């Protein structure tokens, strides 16, 4: 429709915002900038939207008021219906290179700043307990990675994605580092929280760069902590930005136009239910491994390790660990800290210097409870009311074994 036809249609239906936006666009295309601005402003008055603001930004840009244009464009980003405009994106990019104050770095330097690249020395032996989990990870991930020939004969390939999930503080990140250590591969650890806060378009480009870099450093392990934040379920997301990050992530996982062989992609999450379901399909994070709170032996080993250089009375570590059911590694650290504080407080109050005793640990225990319980209750809801979902079978087994089902 031409501008005149749109004008006639608007006379019949003056509150049709889409029609008015089309009319404003037509005026903009025919360089009637003042009239177009008025129409975009009216659209904004009728119904607050990103499209009206983007239109106004385009007019300001054409009038040479780039600062004003960028301000309007950035305001438009706050709306759910925002979609990027290439001309204004270019202007934004130029502004980055001109003004250091506005700079939004999206370069190789940014990638290095946000991604930790190392060759971890942590091995499975450094992770206390969780023997069953280590065995699973060795069979499913590490051996195919180290002996691709053997597994290829059985039509099993190396690489792919593995999602570690479980309550917070139970060693998912440590386990991921240990996997990289066992594989003797480059380990790319990504700070997810910084990626999600990037500008529209920047997060996607960062992800693409990251995968490209990992492909250049084969064999490599890519590790995404807090996957739920990066691959947030598109059904729950309200912004286009979040959806586009997931789309880009899926494209990179599928290796579109690229080869992801010899790249192991690990991720960890406390909230697997927030991860986009498409992420869990075959070829992506098809293997989901539950990392439970440490078992009895692991808790006893942790107590022993944590108290190694601290003055303490001889302890029956297994007996103390029995009272720490569902405690995470972080909880055990907290417990020992509390016990230390009690002893130090006594000493500072004038009592003679003494080591930490089993009683100090028991007293500290009375002041705290396992932080994993909230997570386990949520997991119980899943098992109880969302039955039939095989993804949480290992959680079900754990809950039943501990009388929580």
């Amino acid at each position: 429709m031409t501008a005149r036809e749109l004008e006639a249609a608007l006379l019949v239906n003056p509150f049709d915002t889409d029609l008015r936006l089309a009319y404003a666009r037509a005026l903009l295309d025919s360089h009637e900038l003042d009239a177009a601005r008025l129409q975009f402003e009216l659209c904004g008055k009728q119904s607050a939207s990103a499209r009206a603001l983007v239109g106004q930004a385009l007019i300001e840009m054409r009038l040479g008021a780039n600062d004003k244009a960028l301000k309007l464009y950035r305001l438009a980003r706050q709306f759910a219906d925002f979609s990027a405009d290439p001309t204004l994106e270019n202007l934004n990019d130029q502004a980055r290179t001109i003004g250091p104050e506005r700079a939004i770095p999206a370069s190789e330097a940014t990638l290095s700043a946000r991604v930790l690249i190392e060759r971890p020395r942590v091995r499975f032996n450094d992770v206390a307990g969780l023997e069953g989990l280590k065995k699973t990870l060795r069979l499913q991930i590490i051996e195919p990675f180290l002996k691709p020939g053997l597994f290829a004969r059985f039509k099993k390939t190396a690489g792919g994605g593995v999602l570690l999930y479980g309550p917070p503080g139970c060693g998912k990140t440590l386990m991921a580092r240990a996997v990289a250590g066992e594989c003797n591969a480059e380990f790319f650890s990504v700070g997810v929280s910084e990626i999600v806060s990037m500008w529209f378009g920047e997060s996607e480009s960062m992800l693409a760069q990251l995968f490209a870099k990992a492909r250049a450093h084969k064999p490599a392990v890519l590790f995404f902590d807090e996957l739920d934040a990066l691959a947030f379920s598109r059904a729950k997301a309200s912004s286009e930005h979040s959806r586009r990050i997931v789309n880009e992530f899926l494209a990179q996982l599928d290796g579109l136009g690229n080869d992801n062989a010899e790249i192991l992609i690990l991720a960890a999450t406390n909230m697997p239910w927030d991860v986009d379901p498409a992420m869990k399909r075959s070829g992506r994070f098809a293997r989901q491994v539950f990392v439970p709170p440490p078992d009895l032996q692991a808790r006893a080993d942790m107590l022993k390790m944590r108290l190694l250089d601290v003055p303490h009375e001889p302890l029956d570590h297994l007996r103390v660990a029995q009272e720490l059911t569902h405690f995470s590694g972080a909880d055990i650290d907290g417990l020992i800290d509390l016990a230390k504080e009690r002893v130090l407080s006594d000493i500072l109050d004038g009592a003679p210097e003494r080591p930490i005793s089993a009683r100090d640990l028991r007293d500290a225990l009375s002041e705290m409870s396992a932080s994993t319980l909230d997570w386990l209750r949520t997991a119980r809801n899943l098992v109880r009311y969302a039955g039939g979902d095989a993804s949480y079978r290992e959680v079900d087994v754990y809950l039943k074994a501990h009388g929580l089902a």
Partner: protein
Amino acid sequence: MSAELERHISEASAWLERDRLDRAAEAIARGLALDPNSVELRYLGALLEYERDDFSAAASANDAVLRDAPAHYAARVLAARVARAQTDLARAETIQLELLSDYPADENLLAEYALTVLHGGQFEKASQLSAEALRVNPSCQLALVVLGYIDILREKPVNQQHALQTLLQQNPSARHALNLLAHAQLGAHRPQDAREVAAQLVREQPNDPATLSLARAARLQSHWSMLPLWPLMRYGWGASIALYVLGVVVIRGSREMLSPNWHFALVMLWVSYIIYSWIWPPLLKRWLERGEKS
């Protein structure tokens, strides 16, 4: 506005969207340390309190934002939502009418107003406002949800709930559509179907109290031991009265026709059924909820 401040705003918004409220609070605090007067960050602070269900804190933070930026669209919308959450429907309505006079063709505002009116029990007006929102934008989700709830409250048969059907056609996996569907199925006494839909909802949000309550209700009603109580669940008080009257008539009428032993057995059966209908549902509910508060 500096790029750093914009980044904090962007980060706080991202965490709020993901319901990571503590992380959002950290980002807001970092941003406010740079610019304590930032309207956007203060608005996000108010939104954070709203998401935490601390409505009085949200109201006070949002009022401060509106004092400095009275035309702030999102803050005005939030003010109405907070007022509605505090059941101050008159204030919510006033704010929404002011918003509508500034943005007369904003379908989301019309639907928000319809929701406020629905809270006040005005089904007809809510229905008309939703219809107006749908005239502006036929796929306005909130307007369809409002109409869907009105249909449920009016006990329309599921196959006549057009808003629900439209929602499911447009976005069959959306939470609001599934939530409405589960409620409609429960209302239509199809607890097994409601249970399946509720399970899908729990998989997405296993820590949401409203979803769990829905799943629990569906599980309770679809339990095999509730089958004998189906007439009472289906027809409510009417069925209870009918059962009592019918029982008295049958027992009196059969006194002459049956032997005393058979008559006694019949009376016992009737009394047992009444006791069962009275005692069993709460017992089953407690059993199903076992350990949930631990």
